[in-house]
C-alpha cells in the first residue's frame, strides 16, 4: 500500500511539473492548458488573470482552440490577433480607448465553442469576437452571435455558400482561391484532375465546385477520393494515381494526412515533374511538419505568403518574428487574423461606437493596406476583396509566387457570377 501511494505521488509530481512548465511557456509557444478536460472545469489560464475593463477600455473576445487537435493551427492565429491588438493599442487604441483582449479556449470542441461565445457576449459584454478555424466551430458560434447580435471575425478560407449579418469572413471565398486555381491549372498544367480530400464538408463542397467548373471548361475529373481524418496509409490512393495518370492532383486534405500523403508520394517515386499537386490547406506552418524536400515544386493557392512582396508584409513578418521568435513563420490565416483586427478597428472609428449595427453599417467599403496587398470589406456579403496568389514550394520551405490575380478579387461566396455553379448547393 505504501508503495502504491508513493507511485501515485511520483506520477502526480511529474504531472504537476509538466503542467507548470507548460504554463511558463504559454507566453511564447501559445499553449498553457494541461488538458482539454481540465480546461472545461476551471477557467483557462489567461482568463484567471483579472481582466480590468473600465470606461477607458473596449473588451474584445478571442476564441480559438488552444488545446486539442486544432491547437496546432489556431494558437498561431491567436498570436497574430494579439499582435494586431498590441500595435493598435500602442498607436492610441480605438476611439481613444484601449482594446482589452479576453482569451477563451474552444478546446477543439464545438459545444465548448458555442458555450464560450455566449459567455463572451453575455458575461464579458464584448461586441466583437475574433476566432474559430474549422467550419464546424464557425457554425457552432454562428447562432450564438446571431442571437445576441454580436460580431464574429473569421480568419480562414472556407467552402463558401454561407452568409450571416453577424459574421465577417476574412479568409478566401471559393472564387478567391479554388476557382482561379482550377482555371490556372487548366490553362498552364493540364486538363485531367485527380481530386483528393479529407472526408468532411469543405473538401466535398470544394470538389463539387471543381467538378462543375471542369465540366464547363472541358476538363476531366479522372477520380475523386476521400480519406477519413487522420488517415495515414496512402498506398492505395497512390495506386489509383498511377492507374489514372492525371496531370493535376487537387489536394483538399486537411491536417496530419498531408504529411503521410506527400511522404508516401515521394517514396513511390512520384515527383512534381510527374504530376503537380496543388493544395489549399498547406501553408508555411504545415510545410515545416511535412518537410520541404518532399513538397518542393508542388503548388498551393492562397491570398498571402510569407514571401509576398509588399512593404506592409516586410514590417508584419519582422514584427511577428520579433514578438514570437525567429523560427516562427507567418501564413495566410495568420495574416488574415492580423488584418481583420485592423478592419474592425477602422469600422469602429468610423461608426464612433462599438455597437454592432453601427459597426456593421460602417464596415462596408472599409479598406486597409494588409500584408497581402489592399483589402476591402464588401458590404453586400461581409467578405473581403483580396488578391489571389499561386505559389510554388521552394527547398527552404517558403513559397515563390508563380501567378497572382493582379488586383483584389470581389468575393462571391455563392458563386452567383458563374453560370456553371447554379446546381451547387
Amino acid at each position, binding site marked *: 500500500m505504501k508503495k502504491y501511494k508513493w507511485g501515485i505521488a511520483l506520477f502526480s509530481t511529474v504531472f504537476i511539473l509538466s503542467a507548470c512548465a507548460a504554463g511558463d511557456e504559454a507566453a511564447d509557444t501559445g499553449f498553457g492548458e494541461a*488538458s482539454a478536460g481540465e480546461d472545461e472545469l476551471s477557467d483557462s489560464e489567461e482568463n484567471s488573470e483579472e481582466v480590468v475593463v473600465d470606461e477607458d477600455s473596449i473588451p474584445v473576445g478571442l476564441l480559438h482552440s488552444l488545446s486539442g487537435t486544432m491547437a496546432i493551427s489556431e494558437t498561431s492565429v491567436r498570436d497574430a490577433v494579439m499582435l494586431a491588438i498590441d500595435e493598435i493599442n500602442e498607436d492610441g487604441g480605438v476611439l481613444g480607448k484601449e482594446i482589452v483582449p479576453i482569451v477563451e479556449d474552444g478546446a477543439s470542441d464545438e459545444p465548448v465553442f458555442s458555450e464560450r461565445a455566449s459567455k463572451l457576449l453575455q458575461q464579458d459584454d464584448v461586441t466583437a469576437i475574433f476566432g474559430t478555424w474549422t467550419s464546424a466551430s464557425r457554425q457552432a458560434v454562428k447562432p450564438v452571435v446571431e442571437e445576441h447580435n454580436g460580431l464574429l471575425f473569421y480568419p480562414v478560407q472556407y467552402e463558401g455558400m454561407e452568409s450571416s449579418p453577424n459574421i465577417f469572413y476574412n479568409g478566401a471565398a471559393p472564387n478567391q482561391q479554388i476557382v482561379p486555381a482550377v482555371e490556372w491549372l487548366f490553362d498552364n498544367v493540364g486538363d485531367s484532375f485527380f481530386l483528393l480530400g479529407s472526408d468532411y464538408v469543405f473538401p466535398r463542397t470544394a470538389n463539387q465546385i471543381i467538378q462543375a467548373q471542369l465540366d464547363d471548361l472541358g476538363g476531366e475529373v479522372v477520380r475523386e477520393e476521400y480519406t477519413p481524418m487522420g488517415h495515414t496509409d496512402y498506398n492505395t490512393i497512390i*495506386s489509383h494515381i498511377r492507374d489514372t495518370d492525371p496531370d493535376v492532383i487537387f489536394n483538399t486534405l486537411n491536417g496530419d494526412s498531408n*504529411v*503521410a500523403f506527400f511522404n508516401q508520394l515521394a*517514396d513511390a517515386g512520384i515527383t512534381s515533374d510527374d504530376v503537380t499537386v496543388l493544395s489549399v490547406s498547406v501553408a508555411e506552418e504545415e510545410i515545416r511538419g511535412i518537410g520541404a524536400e518532399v513538397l518542393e515544386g508542388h503548388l498551393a493557392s492562397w491570398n498571402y505568403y510569407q514571401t509576398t512582396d509588399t512593404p506592409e508584409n516586410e514590417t508584419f513578418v519582422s514584427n511577428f518574428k520579433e514578438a514570437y521568435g525567429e523560427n516562427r513563420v507567418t501564413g495566410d490565416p495568420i495574416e488574415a487574423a492580423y488584418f481583420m483586427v485592423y478592419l474592425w478597428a477602422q469600422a469602429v472609428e468610423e461608426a464612433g461606437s462599438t455597437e454592432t449595427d453601427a459597426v456593421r453599417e460602417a464596415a462596408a467599403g472599409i479598406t486597409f493596406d494588409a500584408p497581402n496587398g489592399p483589402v476591402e470589406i464588401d458590404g453586400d456579403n461581409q467578405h473581403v476583396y483580396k488578391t489571389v496568389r499561386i505559389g510554388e514550394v521552394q527547398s527552404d520551405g517558403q513559397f515563390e509566387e508563380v501567378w497572382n490575380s493582379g488586383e483584389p478579387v470581389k468575393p462571391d461566396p455563392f458563386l452567383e457570377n458563374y453560370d456553371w455553379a447554379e446546381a451547387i448547393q
Partner: protein
Amino acid sequence: MSSVAMQIFNGISLGSVLLLVAMGLAITFGLMRVINMAHGDLIMIGAYVTYLMQVIFVQYIPEQFFDWYFILAIPAAFIIVAGIGMLLEFTVIRHLYGRPLDSLLATFGAGLILQQLIRTIFGAPNVGVQSPSFLQGSLEIFGLYLPFSRLFMIGLVIVCLGGLFIYLYRTRQGRRVRAVMQNREMATCVGISSRKVDSLTFAMGAGFAGVAGCTLTLIGPIGPTIGLNYIVDAFMVVVVGGVGALTGTVIGALGIGVFNTFFEYWTNASMGKVLIFALIIAFLQWRPSGLFSMKTRSLD
C-alpha cells in the same frame, strides 16, 4: 494484373505497419492483459526519439554520416521507450494487475501526461523528419514500384518478430515470461520472481512500441497526438488475432492489411474502413476469442 500484384504488396505493407504497431500491444495487452491505452503515446515517444536523434546528428555529427541517424534511432527508441515503460509499470501498472478497468483509466491518464510532456518540450506543432537517403525512392520490378521504406519496414517486422519468438520460446527468460503469463501462482511457487518478469515484459512491449514509432516517421506525421491514430488499429489487430497468441497477431495484421487495401481499392478509403470493421464484427461473432485463442488450464 500488375495492379492486383501492386495491391497485394500494398496490403502486405499495410499489414506490416499494423503488425509493428500491434506487436508491443500483443505483449502488454495480449500476454499481460493490461488494457494499455498509453500504447499509442509510447509509439509517439518513439517517433520523437527519432526526431531528437536527427536533431543531434544535424548539429554535432559531420554531414556524410547523416543517414546513420536512423539506424541508431531504432535501438535508441527501443531502449528509451522501454525505460519509460518500465517506469510506468513501476509507478502505476504494477498496482493494478487484475483490475482491467482501473488500468484502462490509469494508462489513459499516463498517455495524456506523456502527450503534454512532449508538447511542453517540443511544442504543439508537428515536427518533420527527413528519411535517410537510402530509404527514399522505390524499387522497380516488373512494372511494380516498391518503395524502399516499405520494404525496409517489412524487413524490420520480420527481424523483430524473429527476435521476439527466439526470446519467448528459446531462452530461459522467455520461458519464465510464458510461465508467469499462463499461471502466475504456479510460476511463483517454483521460484520465479513475477515482479521482475512483469517489469521486463512490460518494458519490452513498450520498447517495441518505440521501434514502431521510429519506423512510422518514414511514412506519417510526427506530433504529440499521433498515438491516437494508431491505438484503435493496434487493439483491433490484437483482438482479431486472439488475445495472448502472437501467431494470431501476425495473421490478424496481415489479414486486416490485405483486406483493407482491397476494400479500399474497390470502393474508397472511408468505405474500406467501414467494410473492414463490418468484417471484423462478423468475424468476432463467429470466433469471439479471435483467430487463435490460448488454451490454458488456469481458472481465470
